């Protein structure tokens, strides 16, 4: 292996080291984002805009807010997420800081998990702030549905953030990263987003979740398949 692949530093097992490194990378990413807050503020503003626009982009006498609510929520979540995803690798290109990371004995999996964790916190924050606004704008009742909604949100978000993290590591090298990421990511959004919308619709209509067991299984399988695939394929996107 070409790089300085020390499997362990000190006496701790390699996995613990890798985990610590991943957390260090995630922490560093979040610290940097917190300093400038640019991507976070942009994503939040975008989310609010999309929620509002979609609310008005219908004939209110023909289409109830509840009908479009699930779709509106998920379009908001995914598009706001895409704004923030390129941030993760753009900041590494600035002074070629990624080279500094790769010069250290950090396995590619640890780099991926660090980036993924930071992206999840980022997107999760945007989602958690958008959710009360969603409830407010669309006048939906979430007394009993909050926990299931958070659950399905977590599942679908993990899916597209994992794939988005992998794709952004590639597109940041191109000139049109902002265009390329949505173009490449959207086909992958179909299974998790369609599933999430179906489940969200059931939750908002206060119908039993057993009706959407198939979709939930799809989401779970998709998560497993693509988090695994993204982790394994990430190594191929690093310069060598």
């Amino acid at each position, binding site marked *: 292996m070409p790089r300085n692949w020390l499997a362990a530093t000190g006496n701790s097992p390699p996995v613990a080291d890798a985990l610590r490194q991943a957390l260090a990378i995630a922490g*560093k990413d979040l610290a940097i984002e917190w300093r400038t807050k640019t991507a976070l503020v942009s994503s939040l503003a975008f989310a609010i805009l999309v929620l509002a626009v979609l609310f008005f982009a219908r004939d209110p006498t023909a289409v109830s807010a509840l009908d479009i609510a699930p779709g509106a929520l998920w379009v908001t979540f995914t598009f706001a997420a895409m704004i923030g995803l390129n941030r993760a690798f753009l900041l590494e290109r600035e002074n070629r*800081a990624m080279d500094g990371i790769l*010069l250290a004995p950090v396995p590619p999996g640890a780099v991926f998990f660090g980036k993924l964790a930071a992206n999840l916190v980022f997107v999760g924050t945007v989602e958690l702030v958008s959710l009360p606004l969603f409830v407010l704008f669309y006048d939906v009742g979430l007394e009993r549905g909050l926990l299931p909604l958070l659950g399905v949100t977590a599942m679908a978000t993990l899916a597209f953030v994992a794939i988005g993290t992998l794709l952004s590591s590639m597109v940041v090298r191109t000139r049109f990263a902002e265009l390329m990421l949505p173009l490449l990511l959207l086909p992958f959004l179909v299974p998790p987003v369609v599933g999430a919308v179906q489940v969200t619709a059931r939750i908002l209509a206060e119908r039993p979740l057993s009706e959407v067991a198939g979709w939930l299984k799809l989401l779970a399988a998709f998560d497993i398949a693509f988090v695994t695939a993204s982790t394994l394929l990430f190594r191929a996107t690093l310069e060598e």
Partner: protein
Amino acid sequence: MPPAEPVLRARDVVRRFGHRRVLAGVSFSLAPGEALLLVGPNGAGKTTLLRVLAGLLRAHGGAVERRGSVGLVAHHSMLYDALTARENLQFFARLHGADSTRRADELLDRMGLSAWADERVAAFSRGMTQRLAIARALLHEPAILLLDEPLTGLDDRSSEQVLDVLAELKRRGRALLIASHQLAELMSVVTAVGFLIQGTLRAVEPLGGRDAAQLAGRYRELTARG
């Protein structure tokens, strides 16, 4: 004194970009306490060679043998502008599994940057950034230090500070490889010279007490051979 065991060795290293051979068979060895100056025109492959030696790029042909870890100081600082000097060093120290706070402060002190430990790198001058970059490269106490144009853009005082650090590293038995066209300033530190022309090392020889002008002449001589 018998020659020490080389701590870095390149054997016929080849590196392509598409079909173009950027490095076409580079061989040399570097022993502890040696400082090899790599001379060559822009586009000769100096930066690529350093990246291959550091392990950032794979050699497409040949091999690189290392007996010890490598530190790299490149054209880009590999630092985060939004973080402070100390935060940068702590982060990279953590990646190496070192005791981050202690190590960071040690190196800040050694590079004369303690006063700016809590300043963001964005506010640093070129000289300070370069010193911090060297600090980052030294975090894991590498046996080999590779430097790509370390003195470019530095004022005299910063240059002196960097040269002092390099001299001390050499005294302590580290192996140094410096790619640079600033021959005159580096004469005090360098022990050997290699001429990288069109992807191959045309010659690797001890400095032999020559000065910058003589080295430039040697370079012209080697290029004329074609």
